[in-house]
């Protein structure tokens, strides 16, 4: 049954008509618990990662590693999550400010964390501490992953607390493109070493 008000369809077929409600649609929340990987696969577990939206937004909340000093990174798949190895060309840079205010802040390109048509996982943050209060939070935008015409642009900005050997606030910015014209239909996040001890990743579609 639908609901029509003054000639305008408000609800029909179990959904609110387009034009009503907000444009940022919650799709899926994954909560880490000593997790080796967290994966969002289109069509599995109610995940939508296809042409339904032209932009997808991942949010990272309090991502805490089991192993100190590691990096948190991600990759894309074009085969439903069988392989996470999409070729990527990327940039990375980060402002870096120590808890000891007298230490000189840094603001530099990170040549060791970018990819030049590499298929490895792309760094979101590096040097993440694992003390109880240390974690990282931020966002990743992925544009039009289902396109079969264009490469797949993405941009991430994640802040983290650097490992206690040099405690600091570090704002990692990574961007680039998956250099493929095949549709991307799955995304995976993991630590370079050890598990994701705790944290939440949410996926949204931008209508």
């Amino acid at each position, binding site marked *: 049954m639908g609901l029509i*008000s*003054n000639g305008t369809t408000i609800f029909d077929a179990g959904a609110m008509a387009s034009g009503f409600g907000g444009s940022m649609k919650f799709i899926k929340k994954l909560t880490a618990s000593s997790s080796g990987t967290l994966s969002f696969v289109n069509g599995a577990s109610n995940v939508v990662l296809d042409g339904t939206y032209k932009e997808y937004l991942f949010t990272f909340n309090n991502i805490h590693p089991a192993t100190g000093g590691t990096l948190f990174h991600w990759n894309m798949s074009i085969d439903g999550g069988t392989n996470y190895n999409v070729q990527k*060309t990327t*940039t990375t840079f980060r402002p870096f400010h120590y808890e000891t205010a007298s230490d000189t802040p840094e603001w530099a390109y990170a040549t060791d964390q970018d990819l*030049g048509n590499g298929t490895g996982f792309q760094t979101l943050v590096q040097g993440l501490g694992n003390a109880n209060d240390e974690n990282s939070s931020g966002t990743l935008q992925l544009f039009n992953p289902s396109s079969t*015409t264009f490469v797949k*642009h993405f941009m991430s900005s994640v802040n983290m607390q650097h490992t206690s050997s040099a405690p600091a606030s570090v704002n990692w910015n990574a*961007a680039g493109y998956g250099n493929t014209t095949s549709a991307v239909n799955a995304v995976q996040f993991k630590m370079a070493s050890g598990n994701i001890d705790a944290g939440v990743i949410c996926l949204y579609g931008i209508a």
Partner: protein
Amino acid sequence: MGVISNGTTLLDAGALDSGVATGSMTLIKTLTASSSATLSFLNGASNVVFDGTYKEYVFKFINIHLATNGQNFTFQADTGTNTSYNQTITSTSFSAYHGENGNSGTLSYGASGDQAQGTAFQLLNSTSEIGSDADQSLSGSLTIYNPSSATFVKHFMATTNWNELNDFTGQTFTAGYFNTTTALTRVQFKISSGNIDSGIIKMYGIK
């Protein structure tokens, strides 16, 4: 027909009641380029709202594809019903680059992409570098704050990722302000030379 629950009107006259909780990001307008010289959002025309209804407006760029190689994606704004699109801008621009061949990972200020009380269209990438290969494009977003203010200058911030014509990835951060206390009523996007071959621009209001 309206819907009233426990004495509270939820919807009436074809619209949700303003007191009904919905998302805070509202899609206002989608424009799709097709060999388009310009794409313009004019308050009051074609269902576009660009006034005091929202304090923040976000434009999303999805796979903006150029007809002409090596050009810039740009924007300007205007007041009233003016069509000159030549408001005074002071802005900053910086970019990160990295080649598909793994070379030249750099982070630099874009002196040729900023303006000091200039009236030109503001670049949303670094100078003259977006490629027009079939799989190349630009994606990202632009936020304009409180364009209807009669008191303050109008701040904006943009972040884009794009394919450089020589097979680099580029991420550009642009920010600044329209140095006017007159309300902005319209925004126009165009390529520095040649058409917007294809692509989508979505405009949102943030409550």
